[in-house]
């Protein structure tokens, strides 16, 4: 495991005049920013589910979004590649490579090929393992068999699944175990060579061993992808991520280096959450 951190913040770290909110200064001079949001607000009907979403994500790093159920972390994540279109109203800017992608002029389908997503429950298509990976590519016009073969192998290797399935690529993906299926889904997303990978509690439906496999996979992928992951599991956040954002009641309360969040949180609420006082 990458960075093992003792998960016991002590309340004396929190001083009397602790801030109500702290957001790490991701200055563009010092960091290469892959994606950033400005003044993001999400409404379900008239209900404001998320506000003050101002975050910047560094390239080739893993950022965890933590918080209790209903804190807005998943809503935030799903807004980043506009999976909330048609479900919720998202206001504000989402800047990806200098372009605000939260506007009508953006082709969402093209955008999602740059910003991929993996969900909580493994959702392989009712197709063969091979076709699960190549399907979206063939829709984009990639038909060269050799090229497809290579992509299948590369992405399965990246997702650490290749060795387990290389002899049964034509088997139905529905026959895979939960952990395998989730890694296949990650491989499927990688096959499109996205820039950014969004993961919504990708291992919460898995057993501990599969979950560890997925974590290892993510750590491997960090070299080539910017990863933003929602997780319920604070140990997981602490183990794999470089940055962590703590959400509470639809607001980002604290965003900092993971190391700092889990050892010296600056906001009392964060301290309460990670010491297990609620959530």
């Amino acid at each position, binding site marked *: 495991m990458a960075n093992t951190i003792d998960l016991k913040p002590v309340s004396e770290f929190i001083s009397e005049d602790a801030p109500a909110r702290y957001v790490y200064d991701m200055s563009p001079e010092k960091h290469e920013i892959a994606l950033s949001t400005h003044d993001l607000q999400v409404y379900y009907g008239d209900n404001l589910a998320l506000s003050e979403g101002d975050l910047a994500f560094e390239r080739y790093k893993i950022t965890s979004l933590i918080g209790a159920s209903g804190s807005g972390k998943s809503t935030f994540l799903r807004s980043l590649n506009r999976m909330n279109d048609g479900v919720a109203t998202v206001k504000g800017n989402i800047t990806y*490579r*200098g*372009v605000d*992608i939260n506007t009508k*002029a*953006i*082709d969402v*389908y*093209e*955008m999602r090929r*740059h910003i991929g997503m993996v969900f909580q429950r493994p959702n392989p298509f009712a197709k063969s393992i091979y076709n699960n990976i190549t399907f979206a590519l063939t*829709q*984009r*016009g990639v038909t060269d068999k050799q090229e497809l073969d290579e992509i299948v192998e590369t992405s399965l290797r990246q997702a650490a699944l290749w060795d387990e399935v290389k002899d049964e690529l034509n088997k139905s993906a529905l026959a895979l175990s939960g952990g395998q299926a989730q890694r296949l889904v990650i491989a499927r997303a990688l096959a499109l060579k996205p820039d950014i990978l969004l993961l919504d509690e990708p291992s919460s439906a898995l057993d501990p061993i599969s979950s560890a496999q997925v974590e290892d996979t993510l750590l491997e992928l960090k070299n080539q992808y910017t990863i933003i992951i929602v997780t319920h599991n604070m140990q997981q956040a602490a183990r794999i991520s470089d940055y962590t954002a703590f959400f509470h009641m639809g607001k980002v309360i604290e965003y900092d280096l993971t190391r700092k969040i889990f050892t010296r949180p600056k906001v009392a609420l964060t301290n309460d959450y990670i010491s297990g006082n609620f959530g």
Partner: protein
Amino acid sequence: MDNITQKLMQKSESTKKDAMGRAISLSALALIVIVVISIFAFVMSRGLATFFHDGVSVKDFLFGTTWNPSVVDPHTKQPYIGALPMIVGSFLVTFLAAIVATPFAIGTSLFMTEIAQKRGTKIMQPVIELLVGIPSVVYGFIGLTVVVPFIRSVFGGSGFGILSGTIVLFVMILPTITSMTVDTLKSVPRHYRESALAIGATRWQMIYKVILRAATPGILTAIVFGMARAFGEALAVQMVIGNAALMPQNLISPSSTLTSVLTMGIGNTVMGSLQNDVLWTLAMILLLMSLVFNLIVRAIGRRGELK
């Protein structure tokens, strides 16, 4: 604009395909709506011609008891276009069939959901499905070869009439009412049953006082659906009703329904003539009645929600 901006702003293949697919599927839906509207428009325009073009009075049509459109009454100089015998015939067979079918449908549904869930469903589910599957001409044929002679031998007369029609329709609407009632009973929450049994009610008390009461709106809906089917059924009824456009004297005198007169008559009249127009008026009544059944179902649904 740099490359990536351009790429993100351009309409992708996916967007184009989606717009096309959306348009195709929407037009299919529009087609169905257009069909429904044209059915109403065409049948209504023909049906109303009786009153507007041929000058028949609505009162004479709805309440007149003599139906013989090709013959003119020597006193009034009006053709005999009293449709009451058919209207009465249709409503009679519909209500009678529903009255007979309802206890059978409820009994069978209770058997499947409350009394013998596993075995009951295993046996009765296929029975209901097979009954639904039997084509109406086969019901008519059985009615003609079994029911009509039976009625004749028991009650005398020709055997054709409202009673035979009722018996045939009873079997035809039974599966409709039953399967919808089963769905309703299954949707009664489990804790209703448990709390009734917990306070010492017998099974029948639980069924009668709790389940059937909770399921009443659903059962009523099922009955109305069954009645709509009975009201609109044409051939099976036509084969056993006797096809005499007379006011039913009793349950075993030859009579007719809206549908039976329609199926017999449309081919034998000339388009645009009064004899033809009045038949379209009968079709219009059928159309409007199916609308009425629809509205009743909706009204029941709304009242059920309020509770």
